[in-house]
């Protein structure tokens, strides 16, 4: 009995050891195929946000290959791109295991993604440990980009310090001039960060902040908050929330006849518009990318998204998921090979052309100067770019229609 016990125990131990081997044995700097490893949240809590992204990035890689692949000048050849994609189930531990697998067993050259700060934090440690550059996607929390890391980069759109910059610029030009703002904030790291930063900016620009209410992500009944808004009578209602969480808020604001000069939503998306319907009319908001930007990458992005059936207004964070591969491949081309040190150097110092414009990373890997947003407004049911004036599709309607 004891012998079979021992035997079985050893079997159990061996079972957990199996699956070994697959060392990344040195790197061939001039491969025929560049392997990029990533995960997408196809299932789990964040999957509603990332619908269609898996197909999008695969389609992008296909387009690159169809156009001849990536030029490796040091090698005098072109290489095709292979994207290794797994589902991280919206779970950090799962993401870590999968990234480990891609690094050790599948020998990926570089990493792109994942999305979401909780996963980004875990995966950035993995990248650092293996000294492989990673360009993360929708990882917006600035404290993921930690001091001392050299491999971690990200392309969130927009970034917190630039989020409402153009909106406030626009506010300087409208008549009648708004003076008071009420902040309604979802209790989530990004939305908290946005409202924290822009509350300060607003106060410094002499707006009076007449209220701040924070709500949990799963709140359905906003009566108490709306009653407080009505009492405060602000000129601007600034909603710092993800689109889905604020659907009942917008609906109930209409119901309870809330009035303001403008209702501003930092993640105004097609998803919000669809669920809220006509009530979304007149809302102003921010968007990270519009397909009227005049550059090659933007045109390509528009093509890819159209191909997989993604509407950039519906899926407003898709562009941040799309961009990492763009940046990584550009960095490889600039480096001339898949030598990790050279590519890392490029990432640190070069300026990249993203669909939303230029992208540059600061010393923490954060695109602190470049990833801004465009101000939009829903007019007659359509999102119109109202600021900056050079990219305007329609002038802003002020005060916002239907909120009077």
């Amino acid at each position, binding site marked *: *009995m*004891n012998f*079979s*016990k*021992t*035997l*079985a*125990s*050893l079997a*159990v*131990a061996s*079972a*957990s*050891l199996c*699956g*070994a*081997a*697959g*060392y990344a044995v040195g790197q061939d700097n001039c491969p025929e195929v560049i392997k990029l490893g990533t995960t997408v949240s*196809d*299932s*789990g*809590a964040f999957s509603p946000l990332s619908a269609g992204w898996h197909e999008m990035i695969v389609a992008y890689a296909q387009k690159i290959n169809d156009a001849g692949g990536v030029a490796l000048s040091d090698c005098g050849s072109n290489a095709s791109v292979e994207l290794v994609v*797994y*589902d991280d*189930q919206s*779970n*950090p*531990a*799962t993401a*870590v*295991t*999968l990234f*480990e*697998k891609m*690094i*050790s*067993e599948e020998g990926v050259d570089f990493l792109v993604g994942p999305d979401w700060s*909780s996963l980004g*934090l*875990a995966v*950035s*440690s993995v990248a*650092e*440990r*293996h000294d492989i550059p990673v360009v993360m996607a929708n990882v917006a*929390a600035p*404290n*993921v980009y*930690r001091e*001392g*890391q050299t491999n971690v980069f990200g392309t969130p759109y927009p970034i917190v310090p630039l989020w409402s910059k153009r909106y406030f610029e626009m506010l300087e030009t409208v008549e009648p001039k708004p003076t008071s703002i009420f902040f309604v904030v979802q*209790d*989530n*790291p990004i939305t*908290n960060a946005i409202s924290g930063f822009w509350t300060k900016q607003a106060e410094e620009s002499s707006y009076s902040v007449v209220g701040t209410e924070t709500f*949990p992500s799963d709140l359905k009944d906003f009566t108490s908050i709306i009653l407080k808004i009505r009492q405060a009578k602000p000129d601007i209602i600034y909603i710092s929330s993800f689109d889905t969480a604020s659907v009942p808020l917008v609906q109930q604001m209409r119901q309870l006849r809330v009035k303001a000069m403008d209702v501003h939503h930092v993640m105004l998306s097609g998803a919000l518009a669809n669920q809220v319907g006509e009530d979304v009319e007149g809302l102003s908001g921010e968007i990270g990318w519009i397909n009227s930007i005049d550059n090659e990458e933007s045109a390509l992005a528009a093509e890819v998204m159209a191909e997989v059936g993604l509407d950039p207004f519906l899926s407003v964070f898709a562009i941040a998921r799309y961009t990492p591969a763009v940046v990584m491949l550009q960095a490889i081309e600039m480096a001339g090979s898949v030598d990790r040190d050279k590519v890392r150097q490029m990432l640190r110092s070069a300026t990249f052309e993203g669909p939303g414009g230029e992208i540059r990373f600061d010393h923490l890997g954060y695109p602190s100067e470049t990833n801004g947003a465009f101000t939009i407004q829903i007019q007659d049911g359509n999102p119109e770019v109202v600021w900056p004036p050079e990219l305007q599709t329609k002038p802003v309607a002020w005060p916002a229609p239907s909120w009077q």
Partner: protein
Amino acid sequence: MNIPQNMISFGVAAVVSVLIACVPLFSSSYTVSLTMTLLLFFVLAQSWDWVGGELGYVNLSHFAFYGLGAYVFSIAYSNDLHPALSLFLAPIVTALIVSVISVPLFRLRGEYFAFATLALLPLFQILASNLKWLTKGSEGIILPAEQITETAFILMVALAFVTFVASTILVRSPFGLLIRSIRDDEEVAESIGVRILPRKIILMALSAAIAAIAGGIHGWYLSFIDPTTMFGLDVALVPIAMALLGGSALLWGPLVGVIVLVFMNQWLLTNISILHSAFYGLVILLVGRFLPGGLLRSQLLGKVKPLGFLTKEHHEHIVSAGTTIGGLSLSKREPDQDRVALECKNVTKRFGGNTALKDVSIRINEGEIVGLIGANGSGKTTLFNCISRILDLSEGAIVVYGDDIAHLRRDQIAHAGIGRSYQIPRSFERMTVRENITTALMASISPPDYANAKHEAARFAQYVGLADQVDVVVASLSPQKRKLLELARALATSPKILLVDEVASGLTSNEISEFVNHIRELRDVYGLTIIWVEHIFSALSQVVDRVVVLEQGSVIADGPLAEVLENENVQRSYFGAATGGEIEC
């Protein structure tokens, strides 16, 4: 405890642990990561099973203790406490908090307990999100970026080893035995002298402490925690499903469940593009539907000989202690016939509109054998239930050796000397005859050595005629044998007053004679006072000193048997009319 057997188990476990600890040295970081997941879920599933499987309380908040531990560690560590100290604090603080909240929680039973614990998860999540000054709210706590994977891994291996060893010790110890008796029948366990609440709390605190350490280590490994990851509902039920899938209350159950589900999940993630969660759920569902009790209890597996040791129930692990010849371990003494053993003073018990006992007053001296008779529903068992405090009195008092039992807990009543058998046997179904009796022995104020107790238990079993069934699980015994077990178990509590509730029905006349002899011996040799509820007069008449007759909750006669039978009221109660003559039995 059988020392050599434990040494072998621990030795094997140590070797395996060392092997696993070496994994980072010669395999990829992917394997390390996967093994880490395995170890984490093993620790959570195994520690859950202590409360869920051994104690029988389905605790759905176990994952919250993991999260709590992670938070304590992270808060301490991010406030510049040394990681070792932070990791030490995690289980301490968690165990304290859990001990406090489990006092009120354990007032709940069964599904109520499960519901209440389920509610703790979102509560902790809300607290973690809102107490921003402490937990940094939804932003979460970010730990410094360091390379501590190997350290965290080794710590987790060590924790897994400790958890396994602790499980083995728990199962084989008297503490574990008493815990299982609580699981099988909490009321009865208490009434044979097991002090319930402290044991439940200790077990819960230990279980939570283990989960908390796992949380601390894992939080360190992930270098980031936030309310959703730590208290989110989507992963919370997974360790529980793993334990149940493998086989709850089996030594190897949780480990098997964890291995199966972790590997399956990994395989699904890397080989199937969609619906991997659905397949995962399907396996869980199919096991629940077709394999009662989990994988390790499936009949198919039972047929595979080499894996036999995996499927052993707890009582099969405990090496049979055999039966030795000898008398009962009760102390022999002369009864002091002038001492009042038990007195019921105006005892009244009402259930809503129904008065089950009306103003019952009885005095019983030490060494008396008193028969308690009456028609069905006259209140005999209710009286017994009042004496052992299964029920509380509406009015009046019951005094045992001068102490009013109203201020005694049930287990204290057992220690005061009340032992009883139940009319409808209430044995610990999932334990053997020997274990049932051993529980009673180990529940006493100064319990014997555990190994000796098991021998003693066999002698009690022999006394009542269950020598051949001593290692049989009670669930498979006939009702008659269970009644005998009741008696044996009651005797094992070293009672001074024995309440026997209808043991004789179903016995042959030879068996009845033997039983009567036992009763006489118990009084003559061991000085017990005995109250015996019985319908079979021929049994009573052989041994009782006097008889108390109840009718519809009131005492209608109290005296020697022959006298009582001539009582007109008694005759009316039994025959419908007074017979006006003598009755012979």
